[in-house]
């Protein structure tokens, strides 16, 4: 190791950092370039409609956008309170050995591939729901599977945030004679709200961007759902289903929906960044 190694260090590592950051720009650039044929002809208005018949020139993304948002909303509505409850349980309620085991289970589940959740949803949940509300593959089932998939992440991040709440704050609340419920809900959770909200936003981003788990259980019919038990097709699933054979404007149309997803998630990330305290 000599001085010449040092002279190389800064430019070399800077180039690597730059390359990593340029990936984002490159990605957006490529998405835009590939979308161009569809965007250039007919403008963005053609993507607003409900009808998706790309081979006949109908590129309406509205139904799939709405389905995407609905599935993600259902998932986060289920996963956020349950995940927070699990985090509170593991942090404050469970005996230490059980808490460690439970956290281990959550960590294991957080690592389970989404395709496995999808597979289980397809073989177990869909038939189960179908007996009650046919056809089974639906917005509802997709929401359930997604909720299950993001719950460990939400719970683990909420747990980390709760673990960072100083003991003295909780002891102070207890010393005031607050009940455990009040201590947890009025002191611990508000003190950890940033971390918890960050976890929920991350869960939401994952739910919006998930492909396989939804694709396998949502039924994939392009329509505005009349009830939660109707099959729907989300944006990500649409890409996965049609990319294999799409050419020309059709392919470009798929890239448009990819671009839309990217912008949606970037917006979410921007929002999450604003939640964080400055100079954290």
């Amino acid at each position: 190791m000599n001085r010449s190694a040092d002279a190389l260090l800064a430019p070399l590592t800077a180039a690597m950092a730059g390359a990593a950051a340029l990936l984002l720009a490159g990605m957006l650039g490529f998405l835009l370039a590939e979308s161009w044929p569809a965007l250039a002809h007919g403008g963005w208005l053609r993507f607003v409609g409900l009808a998706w018949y790309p081979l006949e020139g109908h590129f309406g993304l509205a139904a799939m956008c709405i389905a995407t948002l609905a599935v993600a909303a259902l998932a986060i509505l289920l996963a956020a309170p349950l995940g927070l409850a699990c985090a509170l349980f593991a942090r404050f309620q469970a005996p230490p050995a059980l808490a460690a085991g439970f956290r281990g289970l959550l960590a294991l589940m957080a690592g389970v591939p989404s395709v496995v959740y999808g597979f289980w949803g397809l073989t177990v949940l869909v038939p189960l729901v179908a007996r009650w509300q046919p056809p089974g593959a639906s917005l509802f089932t997709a929401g359930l599977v997604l909720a299950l998939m993001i719950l460990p992440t939400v719970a683990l991040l909420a747990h980390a945030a709760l673990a960072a709440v100083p003991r003295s704050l909780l002891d102070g609340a207890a010393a005031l004679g607050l009940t455990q419920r009040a201590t947890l809900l009025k002191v611990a959770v508000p003190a950890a709200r940033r971390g918890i909200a960050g976890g929920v936003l991350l869960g939401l981003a994952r739910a919006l961007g998930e492909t396989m788990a939804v694709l396998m259980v949502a039924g994939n019919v392009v329509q505005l759902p009349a009830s939660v038990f109707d099959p729907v097709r989300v944006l990500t699933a649409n890409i996965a289903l049609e990319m294999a054979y799409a050419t020309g404007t059709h392919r470009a149309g798929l890239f448009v929906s990819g671009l839309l997803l990217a912008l949606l998630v970037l917006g979410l990330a921007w929002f999450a960044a604003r939640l964080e305290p400055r100079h954290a």
Partner: protein
Amino acid sequence: MHSVPGDRLFGLALWGAALSVAAVFAWLFVDLARLGLGALSWDFITTAPENAGRDGGIASILVSTLLILGVAVGVAAPVGLGAAVWLNTYTRAGGGTGRRIRLALDGLAGMPSIVFGLFGNAFFSVYLGLGFSILSGGLTLAAMILPVFIRTVEAGLGAVDDGWRRGAAALGLTQSAALAHVILPAAAPAIGAGLMLGIGRAAAETAALIFTSGYVDRMPESLSDSGRALAVHIYDLSMNVAGGDTHAAASALVLVALVACANLLAVALSRRLLTRRLAL
């Protein structure tokens, strides 16, 4: 402690939430095991798939998966390490360039995997002419795991005691020597954790691979051959192959085990690295 009735109820609710979540996860595992354990054997691991995967095993698919992972980690680890070193060493807390790069990385980290799939297809497969290949898939996954890896390592480097840096400088060590012998070994656990996160995510990935590394289930002969990853195999068996559920479940068990092992291995490795350094 729990004399207040409301408090008791609250505690019970937490227990209820945690138990039901644990029960659902147990249900999922039991189903997977019930379906797939019967098909799981040494032969399953070591023979090639036949009859679209209904029969035979997953040997070629495991090889493709490991090759894709190898490419992804082989590219992401050095680039990510360099980028993290640069961010940690040469950017200041309030500095503009560093902040912008970190923002870009955070945006990249939240991108849906299907968007990476689109980008990988457009850039690696088509633009660079790599086609549907293990190389395309691996590079796409490298791009996908890079941001999280960088941020984890950077956080680890930031946690390294400043006294060591100043001590190294006061001894007239070069920056490269300080990094190689003191700082990076001290940050080994974070590097291991970052790798673990990356490998876990890459091994679980499906959507980013279907249009980059493809579906071909033959034994790959080189990195420019198409190769089917395990997650893609599960997807294909459960969605497109009638009667593929048993082997899909067995593959899912293998995949979950693989991801879990990768995680444990990375943790153990980072510990080993640290203790070896200590003993040198």
